[in-house]
């Protein structure tokens, strides 16, 4: 279980997150909110890519607040950034190799084959540079990269960005599959509110760097409904 307690964080002097408390436990936890509300900053902070002023992040009871990102990856926390989530000058194959950097050679091969069965589209693109892929293809590669490591906690920042409605719903059902089969702890940030709440077990809503709602997805939907009219 990943817990965030009283987190204040931002970028150097720019304070973005205020007193954030959240829990990422088995199942899918959604983080929603308007643009600029601090959702991505929260995931980045958990991973150690921001300036943390105060608060604590624990993983299975262990304080991991100041641990460098590459060690968190080795601890089984996997993170899909919202932007710049592939290496444009590396080939698709090289991207996948780096994504599995922490794995043994034999395991890496196995895992690459495994994600290629989830995203068969990537197979014919293997030797192409990631920088020339279409937006959707690049997103497949990014998601595949985050799935290659055998993670226990999966943090996905807008996994369905750039994807068609149809493909988005496929991605959501694949994520739900992962939760059911592997018992993962998944945090998802999404713009596609309905799509993600359908598969979520818990939901958080952020505004202005604070979590203003934390509870059942159904309840959040009901609260948001009038605003959406």
């Amino acid at each position, binding site marked *: 279980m990943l817990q965030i307690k009283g987190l204040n964080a931002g970028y150097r002097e720019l304070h973005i997150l205020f007193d954030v408390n959240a829990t990422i436990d088995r199942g899918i936890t959604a983080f929603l909110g308007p643009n600029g509300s601090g959702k991505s900053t929260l995931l980045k902070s958990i991973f150690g890519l921001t300036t943390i002023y105060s608060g604590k992040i624990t993983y299975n009871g262990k304080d991991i607040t100041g641990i460098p990102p*590459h060690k968190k*990856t080795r601890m089984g926390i996997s993170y899909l*950034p919202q932007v710049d989530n592939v290496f444009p000058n590396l080939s698709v194959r090289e991207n996948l190799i780096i994504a599995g950097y922490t794995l043994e050679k034999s395991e890496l091969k196995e895992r690459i084959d495994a994600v290629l069965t989830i995203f068969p589209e990537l197979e014919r693109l293997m030797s192409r540079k990631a920088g020339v892929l279409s937006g959707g293809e690049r997103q497949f590669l990014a998601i595949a990269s985050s799935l290659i490591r055998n993670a226990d906690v999966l943090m996905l920042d807008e996994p369905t960005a750039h994807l068609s409605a149809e493909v988005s719903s496929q991605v959501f059902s694949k994520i739900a599959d992962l939760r059911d089969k592997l018992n993962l702890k998944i945090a998802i940030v999404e713009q596609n509110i309905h799509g993600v709440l359908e598969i979520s077990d818990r939901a958080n809503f952020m505004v202005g760097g604070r979590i203003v709602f934390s509870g059942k997805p159904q309840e959040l939907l009901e609260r948001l409904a009038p605003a959406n009219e």
Partner: protein
Amino acid sequence: MFVVEGALVYSNLLALLSIGLTITYITTGVPNFAQGSFALFGSYTALTLLHTLKIHPYASVPLAFAVGGLAGVAVYALALKPLVKREASIVTLMIATLAVDLILLGIFGAYSDFLEGLTGKSAKKFIFTSYDFSIFGFKTILLFSTFAILLLLASLSALFYRTKFGIALRASMENPELAEVMGVNVARTRTFSWFLSGALASTAGCFLPFRQEIVPLTGSLIIVSIFAASIVGGITSIYGSVLGSYIVGFSESLLTFIISLAFGQILVYSRVISLIMMLIALVLAPKGLAGVVKKKWSIYS
């Protein structure tokens, strides 16, 4: 003919130096003005072994490589890493390396005093040309420096394209944050790049006394040509910097030679040619040759 030979040797050594400069610039964003002085670690390692243990300078290359690598790591870890961590501006980093350069100058000055006291032979001004020999009519320095650069390019391309660590190096050059996210210890790839850069500079420094006289100030003088080579080559491309080295190296050697035939001895001003080329590159092609022939030469951008 001897001018062309000399130009080739000089260019080979410039290439060793500017590849190192480029590597640390891409990986850590530090424009290292002490790169020239890193070369002197090699020169002084060779001189020390020659005068104390009678070891031929060519046999000192492996030790020079290691000493330079460790010096690179030490400078990075002690002086630059804390600044990079604090996201210091490029100007701060530049000034820091200038300070390092001055400190190294002082160290080499003091060390040459010490070495003179120890061996009774000059260490403030030395040259190895009398120790060189010929194979098939070619100066050994020409063969060795050419071999070194070919070996280096082959090993770098094997490292970067055939090994997982090499792919990790390229990944952390391209996007260090994402590389960290993937589990790459970027602090380690950065440290490695400083080792490699220091080691290459020091190797060049081991060869350099076969071409020119070395004084403690040599490093601070040659840095102009190293930067010119890197900038002409595009500063962010390793292969570009190799190309830049040959252009700058040949221009410096040949143009000054031609001008000196016409106007007499002005070899002292050879650096002016590097400076002019650097200016031309900055004005006409800010991304250097790698920017012009990007697809072919630049491997990172």
